[in-house]
């Protein structure tokens, strides 16, 4: 009797917790979503109406003219496709490089493990700076080459450490039994470790977007046809001072704003 009583009260407190959690989440979601809705409303508003009245949630003088203009005048499709290609290629390459390395690093018994890890981590904090990087890209013919979006960003020590932390949690018996069955390291990695590591693979694939450092592509400022969306939206924003146009281009997800590298770039080319 008493037991059912406590069970009931437990269920009730559980329900209250869930209710409070849900309430917090709704407030949070509203806070996150509002600026987006604001952006959408702004980009759908009539540009004249916007200058006289305040947009809060709904567009004023609904018009799709801004979107039509973006697609017509700025030729947004090609840069957008470059963004897509760069992300797909980059994710595949980074998973290949980082996945293999972090599996190797997770073998703590391997000789020189800590030394290698340390060598791989140093570049997280020390970099040669812009000009040597630019000269290097020029020398190995990555300048004006689509591969500059992909190859230099294959490896991030941070991603490797995350993956290693995950590999550490896998039970060692799995590998040992496979090894007894005569499987080689490569087979163990591809057939046993990788399939159960999909959660972390997904995380790394997601993180990749975060790690893309715009500066690389900014200094490599490619032929006009090869720019990705952020460069494009930046050049559009400098050309058009009215913010409504940029605000609809920028609804295409991308990160990072390139600072004014152009002056430096021009000079570096002669260096």
């Amino acid at each position, binding site marked *: 009797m008493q037991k059912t009583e406590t069970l009931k009260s437990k269920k009730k407190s559980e329900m209250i917790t869930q209710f409070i959690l849900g309430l917090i989440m709704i407030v949070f979601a509203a806070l996150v979503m509002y600026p987006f809705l604001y952006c959408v409303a702004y980009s759908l508003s009539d540009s004249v109406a916007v200058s006289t009245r305040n947009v809060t949630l709904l567009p004023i003088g609904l018009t799709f003219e801004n979107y039509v203009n973006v697609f017509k005048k700025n030729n947004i499709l090609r840069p957008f496709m470059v963004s897509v290609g760069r992300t797909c290629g980059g994710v595949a390459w980074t998973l290949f*490089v980082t996945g293999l390395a972090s599996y190797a690093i997770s073998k703590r018994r391997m000789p020189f493990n800590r030394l290698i890890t340390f060598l791989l981590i*140093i*570049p997280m904090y020390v970099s040669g*700076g812009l000009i040597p990087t630019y000269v290097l890209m020029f020398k190995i013919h990555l300048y004006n080459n689509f591969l500059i979006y992909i190859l*230099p960003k*294959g*490896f991030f020590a941070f991603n490797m450490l995350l993956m290693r932390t995950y590999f550490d949690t896998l039970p060692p018996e799995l590998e040992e039994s496979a090894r007894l069955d005569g499987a080689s390291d490569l087979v163990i990695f591809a057939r046993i470790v990788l399939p159960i590591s999909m959660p972390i693979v997904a995380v790394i694939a997601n993180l990749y977007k975060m790690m893309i450092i715009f500066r690389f592509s900014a200094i490599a400022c490619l032929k006009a046809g090869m720019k990705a969306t952020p460069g494009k939206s930046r050049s559009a924003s400098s050309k058009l001072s009215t913010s409504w146009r940029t605000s609809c281009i920028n609804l295409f997800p991308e990160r990072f*704003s390139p600072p004014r590298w152009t002056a430096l770039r021009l000079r570096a080319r002669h260096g």
Partner: protein
Amino acid sequence: MLLAKPPLKSNAYENRRTLSKAIREYRTMYLFLLPALACVAVFAYVPMTGIIMAFQDYSIIKGISGSDFVGIKHFIKFFTDPAFYAALKNTVGISLLSLLFGFPIPIMFAIMIFSMRDSLFKRITQTISYLPHFVSWVVVASIVYKILDPNTGVVNVISKAMGGEAVNFMRDPAYFWGLLIGSSIWKELGWNSILYLAALSAVPPEQYESAVVDGAGGFQKLIFITLPGIAPTIGLMLIFTIGSLFNVNFDAVYNLRNPLLSATANTIDYYVYQEGVLNDKISFATAIGLAQSAVALALVTGSNALSRKIRGYGAF
């Protein structure tokens, strides 16, 4: 039981043999490391030769090989520049505050999401929380400027309607730190919680079940199972956050700041940008960058050593 073997003639010889044996045993692993090592060598270590510029009066026309060496002139110069100390103060202040607020919030958020029952609602909130991450800082800054506008911004419209006075947030340096940290949290909260969610889902459910059998309440489960379960991930993140104590996201500062806010908005990274790119003192900027890297590396190695000592393991 094996008896201890008498020492061989040459211990070094024996060691070398076991070492080479171990290396051969792990040869596939070294092969696995090859692409990463090649990537880092070419794209990180080769450009690192540029560090030499910090000790030169680098001129683009002469190049690294032709420029004159000047020793630590640039280091002395920035250590005696009051503008550098102002930037240092801002950087450390912002970093410490965002460590205090920005670090624990994603963990709390991840735990809240994790303990939600309704899976559809859970997934929707999660997806919404990732959205701001995909917006570039240019746009975030323009939204911040629009929302905080003294005449038309929503915040001031509401505060005026309630009888308050309009505040010009983007002209008063007093608000910048709060604005920067607040908008960074808004932008990256959901995203940063992904890591902790992945760690949370790796905690074995049996632990929770046996805790419930032992009569543990929600709070006790949190303290004794959830937090210890994700402690390695928290520790790893903490080591790297401490390492970046002298860095503040440049994109955020660059887009949010304006000349009126320079008293609180000039960080070290901005100072480097100002001197190196806008004023063309490339060697000077490289010297500051180098000092920054050295401090960051020392901080990371130090906090890693501390973590090894306290918890028995670290990031490397």
